[in-house]
C-alpha cells in the first residue's frame, strides 16, 4: 500500500486574538466559515473571555460536520465534571468532540484560583496524565450496549454492563461510574501541545493529536522519529498519534516581518507555495496534517481556505470528510472500543 495516496491530510484551525473572545456571534461566524471551507476541526484555545467548553457546546448545535476541540486547563477542572461535560457534547455533536489538556496553568489564570497552589512543571504533567487517564476510564463506565430499554419487560439497563472506576491515585480519588452514556466516539481524541519532553511523554502515553512546533522539515522528521520511539515504549502503534505541526501561513509575495520565537511555523508565499510546503511535509511522512493558525476573522479563514485548500485537494492530499464523520474518522483513528470489551476479548483469546 502506498503510504502517500491512502493517507488523508487532517486540517485543523486555531484562531488567535487581537483581543479575547467577547462575542459568541463572532465565534459562530468563524466556526461556520471554517466548516464551510472544509477544515476538519476547530481548536478553541483558551483565550481570555468566553469559556471554550461552553462555546463548544453551543457550536455543536450550530454546526454539522466540523470537529470541536476546546482547551481545558487541568489544574482548574475536576475529572468527573470535565468527563461528563465533554461526553455530553460528544453526544450532542454526534461524535465531533475532542479535548486539549493543558497541564500547566497560565500564571495569570492561577491568581483567579487563588486557593490552588501552582505545581512545578514535572508534577503538573504527572497530574495531567492521571487526569487524562481518569477521564478516559470514566467514559468507559457503561458498555456501548448497556441500555436495553425494553418497555414491555420494564428492564432499562443490564447490571452486568457498567463498571465502577474506584480510582485512587496520587492526585485524584474517583469512584464512578460516569452518569453519561459512553460517548459516540468512545474516546474523545486528546490534543497535547508539544514543545517539551514532558509534553511529548504525555502525548505518547495518552495523546492522539500532537501539536508540534518544528522549525523546519528536518526538525519535523526528527520529532516524528522521537515520537515513534516514545509511542513504542508506551506500547502504542506509531499511527495512534497524529502529528499536526502548527503552521502560521502568511499569504503574499513580499516578505513581511516574521514573528520570531516559539510558536507555529511561519510559512510565507503564494497559496500555491504554501500548499506545496504542506504537501511536501505530508508526503515525507513528517506530518499527518496541520493546525493552521489564523487571525480570528471570517475573512482571514476564507482567504486562506480559498487559496490553499483547492491546491491540497488537487494534489490528492486532502478531501472533504463526509457528513456524519466523527472527529476520530477525520483523524483516521477509527472507533475506540471500550477497555472492558478489549479485556473481555483478551480473556477469551
Amino acid at each position, binding site marked *: 500500500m502506498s503510504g502517500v495516496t491512502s493517507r488523508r491530510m487532517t486540517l485543523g484551525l486555531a484562531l488567535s486574538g487581537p483581543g479575547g473572545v467577547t462575542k459568541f456571534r463572532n465565534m459562530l461566524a468563524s466556526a461556520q466559515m471554517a466548516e464551510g471551507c472544509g477544515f476538519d476541526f476547530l481548536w478553541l484555545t483558551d483565550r481570555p473571555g468566553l469559556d471554550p467548553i461552553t462555546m463548544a457546546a453551543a457550536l455543536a448545535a450550530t454546526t454539522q460536520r466540523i470537529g470541536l476541540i476546546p482547551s481545558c486547563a487541568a489544574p482548574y477542572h475536576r475529572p468527573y465534571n470535565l468527563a461528563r461535560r465533554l461526553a455530553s457534547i460528544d453526544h*450532542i455533536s454526534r461524535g465531533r468532540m475532542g479535548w486539549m489538556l493543558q497541564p500547566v496553568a497560565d500564571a495569570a489564570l492561577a*491568581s*483567579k484560583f487563588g486557593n490552588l497552589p501552582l505545581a512545578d512543571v514535572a508534577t503538573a504533567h504527572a497530574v495531567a496524565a492521571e487526569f487524562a487517564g481518569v477521564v478516559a476510564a470514566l467514559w468507559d463506565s457503561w458498555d456501548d450496549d448497556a*441500555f436495553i430499554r425494553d418497555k414491555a419487560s420494564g428492564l432499562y439497563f443490564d447490571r452486568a454492563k*457498567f463498571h465502577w472506576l474506584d480510582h485512587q491515585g496520587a492526585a485524584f480519588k*474517583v469512584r464512578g461510574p460516569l*452518569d*453519561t452514556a459512553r460517548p459516540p466516539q468512545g474516546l474523545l481524541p486528546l490534543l497535547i501541545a508539544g514543545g517539551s519532553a514532558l509534553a511529548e511523554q504525555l502525548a505518547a502515553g495518552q495523546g492522539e493529536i500532537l501539536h508540534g512546533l518544528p522549525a523546519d522539515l528536518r526538525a519535523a522528521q526528527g520529532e516524528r522519529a522521537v515520537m515513534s520511539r516514545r509511542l513504542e515504549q508506551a506500547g502504542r502503534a506509531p499511527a495512534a498519534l497524529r502529528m499536526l505541526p502548527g503552521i502560521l501561513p502568511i499569504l503574499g509575495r513580499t516578505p513581511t516581518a516574521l514573528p520570531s520565537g516559539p510558536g507555529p511555523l511561519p510559512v510565507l508565499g503564494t497559496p500555491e507555495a504554501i500548499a506545496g510546503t504542506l504537501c511536501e511535509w505530508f508526503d515525507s511522512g513528517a506530518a499527518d496534517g496541520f493546525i493552521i493558525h489564523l487571525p480570528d476573522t471570517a475573512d482571514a479563514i476564507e482567504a486562506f481556505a480559498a487559496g490553499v485548500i483547492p491546491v491540497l485537494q488537487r494534489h490528492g492530499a486532502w478531501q472533504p470528510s463526509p457528513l456524519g464523520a466523527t472527529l476520530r474518522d477525520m483523524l483516521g483513528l477509527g472507533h475506540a472500543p471500550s477497555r472492558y470489551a478489549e479485556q473481555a476479548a483478551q480473556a477469551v483469546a
Partner: protein
Amino acid sequence: MSSTKRQLSLGLSIANLGYHYAAWRHPGVPADGNMDFRHFVHCAKLAERGLFDLIFLADSSAVRDLDRPAIARDMEHQIVKHEPTALLAALAAVTRHVGLVPTASATYNEPYNLTRTLCTLDHISGGRAGWNMVTGFSIDEARNFGLDKLHDSDTRHARAAEFAAVLRGLEDGGTLDHAGPHFRLRGSLDMAPGPQRRIPIFTAGTSDNAEELAARSADVVYGGQPTIETARAYYASVKGRLAKYGRSPDELKMMPGIMAFIGRTKQEAQDKFDRMQELIEPRLGLGLLTVSSFPDYTGYDLDGPVPELPMPGGRKSEFIDIALDKVRRENLSIRQLYELVSGGFWHLGVVGTPTMVADVMEEWFTTGAADGFNIQPPCIPVDAEDFVELVVPELQRRGLFRTRYEGNTLSDHLGLHQTQQRAMPLPMPAAGA
C-alpha cells in the same frame, strides 16, 4: 391586560423522560431520549411555544444508589444524562426566548470556572442564563470528588453563600479581590458583563440552612411542597427571612414543583394516572420505598398488608409518618404504598382536567403558597405537551399568565429587573470590588 399585574412564573423541568417512575415505558416517551439531543430540542421549543419563563435541569454529578442492587433504583431512566451547562448552551443556540437554568453544585465546582461558564451561557443566549445552586445531598456524588463522606450541612451552605458572593463580584465584569474561608481569588473574568449583568440564582431545600441560603442569595426558590398548608408555611418562612438581608418579599420568587396528570375529563386524567401506576415494576416500587427511607419490604406479599418493620437506622421523618398513618387507616397493601409514594409524595400532584389544574395553581398563587411553578411532567414530552396545549390557555384566560414574551432576558421574564439592581451583601468582609 396590564403588564404590571402579578402573573405566574412557569418553569419546565426537563427531568429527562419524566417525573413518573415508569415514564420511559409510556408509548409516547422516547426511551433513549435522555441522551438524544433532539428530545431536548423538542422540549425546549415546546416550553417556548408555551411562553414558559425557563427550562430547568435538575442534576447530581453521580449515578445514585447503584450499589444497592437488592433494592433496585428508584428511577432507572435517569441513570445517564446530559451535563446541564453543556446541554443548555447547545439549546441556547436553537431557542430565542426561554430562560435556561442549569443545576450546578457549589460544593463540587470552583467559583471562577462556574461563573465563567454561566456568564458565557448568558452571552450565548442573549441574557437567558440562570443558575440552580445546590450543595449536594448524595454520598455517591461526594465519592466522585475524592470524599468518603458528605460535608456537613453547615459547611456546604457556608461555602455556597460565599460561592454566590464571588459570582456576584465577578459577573458584572469587575475586578474582585476576595479572601474568605473557602475561596481566595483575585482578578476579573476578562469578559464583558453578560446581557443580564446579574444571573438569577435558584436554590431549593427546606432545612434551616437551606432557607437561610435562599433568603441571602437566591432570586428563585424551587420548593418541594406536597400540600397548600406546608407550602404556605414554607413561603412565609423563606420570605420572612429576607428583611434581615435588606431585601423585600417580592425580590424572591417561590416556585414549587407540580406534577399534573391532565385529561380532558376527570376520568381521562384518572385513567392516565392509573395506567402509569400499573407500569411501575414491583422491583422499582420497592426500591423507591427504600431510597425514600422506608424499610425494605422485599420478600413480602406485594398485595398483602404492610408489615410493621423497624425504620432503617431508627430514622424518623414526618413524611413517612404521614404515609404510614394513611396505610394503617386505609389498610393499604405494599403495592398501594409504593404507588402512593410515587404519585406526588414529595411535590404537589394533581390528577384532573385543565380547569382543575388551573384552580389548584390559582389558589396557591393567590393565597401565599407560590409565585409560580416548576412544571414536572410525569412523562416527557407527552405530558408537557398537554400542559402547554390545555393548561396554559386556561391560565391565560384567567389573566394569570402572559400571552406573549414581553422581555428578552430571564430576569425580564421573572420580573426581577426592577428590584434587583442592588448588589448583594457579601457574607463576610471582602476587600476590593
